[in-house]
C-alpha cells in the first residue's frame, strides 16, 4: 500500500493552483543572476582539457605526454590505463558482462571523439595548448557502424569480451497476436527509421569537483539531471556514499533528459582527488557533440498491423533495433518505457514487441525527452496513417475509430499498464475545432488544385508521467529495484515564515514555483512569501530527479503530504493551547479556531511561537519546532514485471492531439507550416504558463527531430555534424505560432488530479509533421518513413 497524502483541509476552490503566477525562478534569470555550474569558482580551481580519439575504432599503442607535461601551468595528465587501475567501471543497467565503460579509453578507443587523455592546468587555454602536444599512436580497427550489420555473427566485435554486438534482445507477446493476425481481414508491414538526434541543451555539461582530504569529502557542482548521480560517482571511486555531496542549488541550462554526465562527474572527481586541487570541466561544443555521450535514440522499427476494413486495428507486431553506440549505460531502458504505452491511445487488443539493443562504434546514447517514447510513438502514429490510407478514411477518423473510450478507464493495455484516466475523443474534437479542420481540408484541396504541394497531419500521444524503476527489472532479471521515490521537507520557523527543501536540481521546469504554489494553496498564504531551496545530496531526502515528467506528480504529492502533516500538527498545537480537543477545532484561513464557538482562535504566528519558544504550552511529548517531511513512492509503483513482461509502467497518462498543415516548396523541398493547432490534457494544471511552455518546448524539439536534427556519421565513423552550423536546431523562423487548448481530466492517482506534461509535445510532433508531409506527397504516390525528413528527401519524392 503506497502512502498517499493526508486528506485536504484547504478550500476546494483553488486560489493559486491553475492561476497565472509569475514563476519565481524567472527573476534571477532575467537579471543575469542565475548560478550555473560553469559560474562556480573555488580557490585554486584548475581546469581540464581532453584529448579525443581520432578514430572510430582503434587500438591505442602508445601515448606520449612528455611535451604536454612541460607546458608551464600544466599540473598533471591522466591516461586511461591509469584511471582504470584506480576506479571501477561506470554502471551498466543491462546485464552485459564484458562491456566496460570508463571515462577514458583504455587500450582500445571505440568511437571517434571518445576521451583518451585528460589534462589538468591552471587555465583551460593552457590545458588546451598542452592537449595539442599529446602524441597518441593508434592502430585502426574495422569500425562497426550499421546496427543491422553489427548483429551479424561475423561482424567485428565492438566489445570482444562480450559474446556479440547484441546487448539485449527479447520478444514480448501480450495477448493472442498470431490468432489476431490470422483473423484480420487486412495487414500491413512498414519499416521506419528514427535517426540519431538529441535535445542538445544550449549549456554544455559542466562539473566542478573538490576533494577535501581533511574530511574525506567530495563536493560536486554539476549541470546534472540524473537519478543516481551521487551513487554512481561513489561507486566508481569507491567512496562511501555519505562522502559524496552533490550540490543541487546549481541552475542547469537545459537538459530534457541528456544532462547525465556520469563519466564527466567521475573523471573530474577523480582528478580532484588525484591531483589534490579543485577541478572544473566545462565541455566545449565539440566535446559535447562528439564525445559527451549525449546522443538520443537511433532506431529501426519494423511494424506490422492487423486491422479491418473500417480501419480498426486489432493487433501490432513491433520490432525495434536501437543503436546504443559504444557504451549503453542507461540508454537501452528507453526501449522499456514504451512498453507502458505500446498501443498509444488505441484499444488494440494484442501486441508483440521485440526490443534489440546493439552496440556500434558511435558515441554513447543517453536519455532524451520522453525516454524512448517519442520514436515509438512516431512508428505507431505513422502506422495509423497507413491504415487510414489503405482503407480510404481520413487520418483523424482512423484515430477516432480506435480510441480507448472515456468510460473504459482505468484501462489496462495488453502489456499490463493501467491508463489512469482520459477523454481522447473530446480532446481530439477540441483540436479539430481549434484547427478548423474542415476549413483546413478546403485550404489543402484548393492549394492542390492550384498545383501546390500541401498536406495535413494528425497525431496523438499518450504521455506517461511519474517515473518508475520497473524497466530496470524488465530489462535485467538481476535488478529488483521497485522504488522510485521523491521527497519534500517543509519548515515553519519561529517568525512564521515557510521554507521547503527539495533534493534535486532544476533545468527549467520551475520546481520552486511548483512547490511554493502548492504550499501556498494548502497553507492559504501568498506563495511568493515561501522560500524553496535545493538541498545537497546529503541534506536532501530520497529523490530520483526530475525525469519522466514526474515532478508535478511525485514532488507535488510529497509537498502536499508534508504540508498537510504540518497543518495537522499546527491544529493539534492550537487545540491544546485553546484547551480543546483537536476534533473541536478547525482551520479558518491561517488561524485555528474553535469550531462554531465564540471565536477563540490561535493565529499562524502564535502557533509558530508556541512550537518554537513556549515548550510549556506545547502538546506534551510533541517535538519542538514546526518541521516535517514526506517521501512518496511513485503512485501505482512498487511492483515487479510478470513472467510475460507485463508491467505497470508509469501512474499517470496525459494525452494530446496535434493537427498540422504544411505547404512544401516545390523548388526547394522546404516545409512551411500553414497551421499548427493542438489540444492536450495533463489533468489538473498547476501553473498555466509553465504548462504551455513545456508543451511548446516539446513541439520545438519535435520539429527539430522531424525536419532538421541528426547526428550524421560518415563511412569512417567520424561525426560530421559537430557544430550548430551542421547540426541544425529550429530557430524562430522554423517554429511556427501554435494554437493550443487545454482539457482537464484529473488523475485518480494524485492528490490534486495532476499529471505530467514535459514530454508530450516531443512525442506527438514528429509524427504529426511527417504525417502532414506524407499527406502532401500522397498525390505524387510517395511517402517518407523516417525522421528527420530533409528537403533532399522531399525533392526526390516530388520527382
Amino acid at each position, binding site marked *: 500500500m503506497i502512502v498517499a497524502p493526508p486528506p485536504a483541509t484547504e478550500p476546494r476552490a483553488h486560489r493559486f493552483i491553475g492561476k497565472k503566477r509569475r514563476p519565481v525562478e524567472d527573476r534571477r534569470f532575467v537579471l543575469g543572476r542565475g548560478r550555473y555550474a560553469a559560474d562556480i569558482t573555488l580557490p585554486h580551481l584548475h581546469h581540464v582539457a581532453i584529448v579525443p580519439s581520432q578514430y572510430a575504432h582503434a587500438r591505442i599503442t602508445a601515448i606520449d605526454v612528455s611535451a604536454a607535461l612541460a607546458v608551464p601551468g600544466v599540473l598533471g595528465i591522466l591516461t586511461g590505463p591509469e584511471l582504470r587501475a584506480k576506479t571501477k567501471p561506470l554502471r551498466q543497467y543491462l546485464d552485459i558482462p564484458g562491456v566496460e565503460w570508463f571515462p577514458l579509453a583504455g587500450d582500445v578507443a571505440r568511437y571517434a571523439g571518445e576521451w583518451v587523455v585528460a589534462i589538468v592546468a591552471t587555465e583551460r587555454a593552457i590545458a588546451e595548448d598542452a592537449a595539442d602536444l599529446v602524441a597518441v599512436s593508434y592502430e585502426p580497427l574495422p569500425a562497426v557502424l550499421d546496427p543491422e550489420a553489427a548483429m551479424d555473427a561475423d561482424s567485428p566485435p565492438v566489445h570482444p569480451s562480450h559474446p556479440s554486438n547484441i546487448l539485449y534482445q527479447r520478444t514480448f507477446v501480450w495477448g493472442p497476436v498470431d490468432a489476431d493476425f490470422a483473423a484480420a481481414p487486412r495487414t500491413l508491414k512498414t519499416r521506419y527509421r528514427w535517426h540519431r538526434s538529441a535535445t542538445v541543451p544550449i549549456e554544455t555539461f559542466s562539473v566542478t569537483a573538490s576533494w577535501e582530504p581533511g574530511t574525506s569529502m567530495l563536493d560536486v557542482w554539476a549541470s546534472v539531471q540524473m537519478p543516481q548521480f551521487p551513487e554512481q560517482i561513489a561507486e566508481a571511486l569507491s567512496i562511501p556514499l555519505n562522502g559524496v555531496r552533490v550540490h543541487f542549488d546549481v541552475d542547469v541550462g537545459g537538459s530534457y533528459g541528456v544532462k547525465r554526465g556520469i563519466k564527466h562527474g567521475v573523471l573530474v572527481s577523480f582528478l580532484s582527488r588525484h591531483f589534490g586541487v579543485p577541478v572544473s570541466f566545462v565541455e566545449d561544443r565539440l566535446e559535447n557533440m562528439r564525445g559527451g555521450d549525449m546522443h538520443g535514440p537511433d532506431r529501426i522499427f519494423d511494424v506490422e498491423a492487423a486491422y479491418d476494413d473500417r480501419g480498426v486495428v486489432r493487433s501490432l507486431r513491433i520490432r525495434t533495433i536501437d543503436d546504443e553506440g559504444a557504451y549503453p549505460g542507461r540508454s537501452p531502458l528507453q526501449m522499456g518505457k514504451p512498453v507502458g504505452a505500446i498501443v498509444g491511445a488505441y484499444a488494440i487488443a494484442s501486441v508483440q514487441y521485440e526490443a534489440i539493443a546493439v552496440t556500434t562504434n558511435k558515441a554513447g546514447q543517453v536519455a532524451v525527452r520522453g525516454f524512448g517514447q517519442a520514436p515509438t510513438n512516431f512508428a505507431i502514429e505513422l502506422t495509423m496513417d497507413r491504415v487510414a490510407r489503405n482503407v480510404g478514411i481520413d487520418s483523424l477518423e482512423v484515430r477516432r475509430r480506435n480510441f480507448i473510450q472515456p468510460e473504459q478507464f482505468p484501462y489496462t493495455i495488453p502489456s499490463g499498464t493501467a491508463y489512469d484516466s482520459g477523454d481522447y475523443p473530446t480532446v481530439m474534437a477540441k483540436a479539430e475545432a481549434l484547427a478548423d479542420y474542415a476549413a483546413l481540408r478546403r485550404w489543402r484541396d484548393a492549394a492542390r488544385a492550384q498545383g501546390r504541394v500541401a498536406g495535413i497531419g494528425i497525431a496523438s500521444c499518450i504521455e506517461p508521467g511519474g517515473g518508475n524503476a520497473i524497466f530496470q527489472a524488465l530489462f535485467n532479471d538481476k535488478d529488483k529495484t521497485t522504488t522510485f521515490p521523491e521527497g519534500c521537507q517543509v519548515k515553519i520557523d519561529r517568525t512564521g515564515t515557510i521554507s521547503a527543501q527539495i533534493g534535486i536540481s532544476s533545468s527549467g521546469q520551475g520546481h520552486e514555483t511548483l512547490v511554493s504554489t502548492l504550499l501556498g494553496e494548502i497553507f492559504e498564504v501568498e506563495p511568493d512569501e515561501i522560500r524553496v531551496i535545493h538541498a545537497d545530496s546529503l541534506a536532501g531526502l530520497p529523490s530520483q530527479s526530475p525525469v519522466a515528467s514526474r515532478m508535478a506528480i511525485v514532488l507535488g504529492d510529497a509537498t502536499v503530504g508534508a504540508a498537510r502533516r504540518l497543518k495537522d500538527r499546527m491544529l493539534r498545537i492550537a487545540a491544546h493551547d485553546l484547551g480543546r480537543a483537536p476534533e473541536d477545532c478547525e482551520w479558518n484561513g491561517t488561524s485555528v479556531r474553535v469550531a462554531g464557538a465564540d471565536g477563540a482562535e490561535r493565529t499562524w504566528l502564535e502557533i509558530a511561537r508556541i512550537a518554537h519558544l513556549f515548550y510549556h504550552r506545547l502538546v506534551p511529548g510533541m517535538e519542538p519546532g514546526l518541521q516535517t517531511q514526506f517521501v512518496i513512492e511513485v503512485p501505482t509503483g512498487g511492483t515487479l514485471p510478470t513472467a510475460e513482461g507485463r508491467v505497470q509502467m508509469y501512474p499517470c497518462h496525459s494525452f494530446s492531439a496535434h493537427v498540422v498543415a504544411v505547404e512544401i516548396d516545390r523548388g526547394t523541398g522546404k516545409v512551411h507550416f500553414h497551421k499548427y493547432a493542438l489540444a492536450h490534457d495533463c489533468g489538473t494544471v498547476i501553473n498555466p504558463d509553465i504548462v504551455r511552455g*513545456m508543451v511548446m*518546448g516539446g513541439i520545438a524539439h519535435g520539429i527539430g527531430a522531424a525536419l532538421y536534427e541528426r547526428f550524421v556519421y560518415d563511412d569512417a565513423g567520424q561525426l560530421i555534424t559537430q557544430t550548430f552550423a551542421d547540426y541544425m536546431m529550429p530557430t524562430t523562423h522554423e517554429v511556427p505560432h501554435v494554437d493550443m487548448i487545454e482539457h482537464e481530466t484529473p488523475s485518480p492517482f494524485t492528490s490534486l488530479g495532476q499529471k505530467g506534461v514535459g514530454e508530450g509535445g516531443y512525442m506527438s510532433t514528429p509524427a504529426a509533421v511527417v504525417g502532414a508531409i506524407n499527406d502532401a506527397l500522397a498525390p505524387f504516390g510517395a511517402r517518407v518513413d523516417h525522421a528527420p525528413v530533409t528537403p533532399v528527401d522531399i525533392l526526390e519524392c516530388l520527382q
Partner: protein
Amino acid sequence: MSRHDITMIVNGKRIERSVPARRSLADFLRDDLQLTGTHLGCEHGICGACTVHLDGVPVRSCILYAVQADGAEVTTVEGLSPDGTTLSPLQDAFVSCHGLQCGFCTPGMLMAATALLRENPHPTDAEIRDELGGNICRCTGYQQIVESVQQAAREGFVR
C-alpha cells in the same frame, strides 16, 4: 602570449585590465569581471547566448577578443536593470509571460530584443521573429519569448 592593457566602460563603469591577446570578450566578462550572466553555448557565434552590446550594437562576445573592445562601451545582461534589482520593462515582460525556462539563452535573448526595441519600439510579430532568429532557445519553442517582446512593446519600452 602577448598581453595588452585595455580600457572599456562595462555597464557604466570604467574598467582597466591587462589581458592576453587571445582572451575572448566573453571570457573576459565572465572570468576577469565575474559578469557570469553572459553565457557560452557554442563559442562559434551561432547560438547567440553570449550576446552583449558593444557601443550599443548586439555582438557575439564569444567570437570577439577582449582587446577588440578596447575603448568601447559594453553592456551585458547585468546592465539592463537600472540598479541591479529593478527589472527593465523587457525583463519584467519575460517574467510575466514566462518567456524562458532554464534561463541559459535568456541573457542573449534580452540583449537581442533590447536592441530591437530601441530601433523599432513597435515591431510586428514577424519583425520580432526575424530579429531573434539568431538566438537559439531549446526550452520554450519561442512562443512565450515573442509574447514577452510584444508585451514590452505594448507597455512602452523606454531605455
